[in-house]
């Protein structure tokens, strides 16, 4: 492998790993946000029924 091959490999792995982590983190973020929203709205509905 030539010098640019090693450089491309290093830059490719770093960009790929960070993009993959960002993508997975965004998925965890969206899932937690949706779950929180669902719980809050069902709580608000329960409070409304009580009143």
């Amino acid at each position, binding site marked *: 492998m030539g010098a640019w091959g090693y450089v491309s490999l290093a*830059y490719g792995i770093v960009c790929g790993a960070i993009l993959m982590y960002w993508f997975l*983190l965004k998925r965890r*973020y969206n899932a*937690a946000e949706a779950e929180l929203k669902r719980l809050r709205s069902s709580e608000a509905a329960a409070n409304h029924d009580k009143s």
Partner: protein
Amino acid sequence: MGRSTKTVKRRKGILGGLALVAVVAGLCWSLLVAPPDAYQGEVQRIMYLHLPSILTAYLSYFLVFIGSGMYLWKRDNKDDLLAHAAAELGVLFTALTIIEGSIWGKPTWGVWWTWDARLTLTAILLLIYAGYLMLRSSIDDEQRAASAAAILGILGFLDIPLIHMSVYWWRTLHQPPSILRPDKAPWENVHPAMLTALAISFVGFLLLYFYLLSLRYRVGEMRQEIKALRLERGV
């Protein structure tokens, strides 16, 4: 969605956008503008990733250290959330540092890996904080998990001065620092175009780090809110 939530989301978006611009600028400068090294040639360009990665990892472990210390002192969950989020990112950036170093090592040293003091201590750092994450997930009681992890988080940080000093204390294959040297300022030791590339790349890594940290911290915060709401409702 409340107004403050929208503002926080907008701030995160701005930070993410700035991080993207800085990272792309860093990549362009490192690969297209900075000159090749006189001895190592083009392969030295890996330094523009390698150094910012490890400095970002050190910053992350410093936040683990501060967050863990504050948690043990004040018992505030927010400090524990910060330490947990920073540890996860620290592991990511340390793993990347080791991979980049390995790819840089092959054409310059002739090996992908050697049991050099600095490399070994960095691998130990990775194992300590990977252990920190495993420890957290292996204890059910959250308070106990947070306390045990905080102690490990503080002890693990002691490895960083050892890593930094290892090239002075032992005969190592790894070169001594070019930037963080006690005897010379960075601009006396490194070509200005290389230093500029390194500075832009480092700013990009920092902005990206704080963007990811803010997302990861919010994930932890939302999980705690979910748990509290479920407990309240007896789910």
